[in-house]
């Protein structure tokens, strides 16, 4: 079936540094999402992106977070600067034609901020 890829699978960085998480969504999908799951806790919605714009973001999507998808390449989540509480698994998802379509999830990037 369709696959969403995430690069890297793991990332360890020092607090205060910048990190970019990359998502390679399913080809021709138009809607993109980031979710965050702290170890042992529920997965929480971060941001919803369509047509080059953030359509919705949650209160977890801090000012230090930004998303973009330049020229149809990777859909990225950038955190600058990182904080200890940003340590989590970040899941990317994409859906095809409508924001009510099934979302296809990537395997997650495990981010550890030291």
């Amino acid at each position: 079936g369709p696959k969403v890829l995430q690069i890297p699978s793991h990332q360890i960085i020092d607090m205060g540094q910048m990190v970019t998480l990359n998502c390679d969504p399913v080809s021709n999908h138009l809607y993109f999402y980031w979710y965050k799951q702290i170890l042992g806790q529920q997965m929480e919605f971060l941001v919803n992106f369509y047509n080059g714009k953030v359509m919705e973001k949650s209160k977890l999507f801090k000012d230090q977070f930004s998303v973009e998808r330049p020229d149809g390449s990777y859909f990225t989540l950038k955190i600058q600067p990182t904080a200890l509480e940003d340590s989590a698994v970040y899941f990317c998802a994409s859906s095809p034609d409508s924001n009510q379509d099934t979302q296809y999830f990537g395997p997650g990037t495990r981010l550890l901020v030291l």
Partner: protein
Amino acid sequence: GDKVKQSPSALSLQEGTNSALRCNFSIAATTVQWFLQNPRGSLINLFYLVPGTKENGRLKSAFDSKESYSTLHIRDAQLEDSGTYFCAAEPSNNRIFFGDGTQLVVKP
């Protein structure tokens, strides 16, 4: 998905009635989550469960890891409960596997 089977795929309820959604797992899930997809498409978390039950208002969820299923009970359904509900199962390796969703319509 093939690892998480949700039923029914669609459901229509009269306002004020009760119903249950179900997920069956073909993987050994350690935790289960239930989500409601909002009108903007975002999946909003309703429950995060280890084996057992949780209740929140008119919603109650149960997870039986031995029998590999989870249920979401909706009591006194309201119009605003309409939407697509997804369950997701986590085995021990931090992957998440989603069901295909149940589209719920609550009618007045």
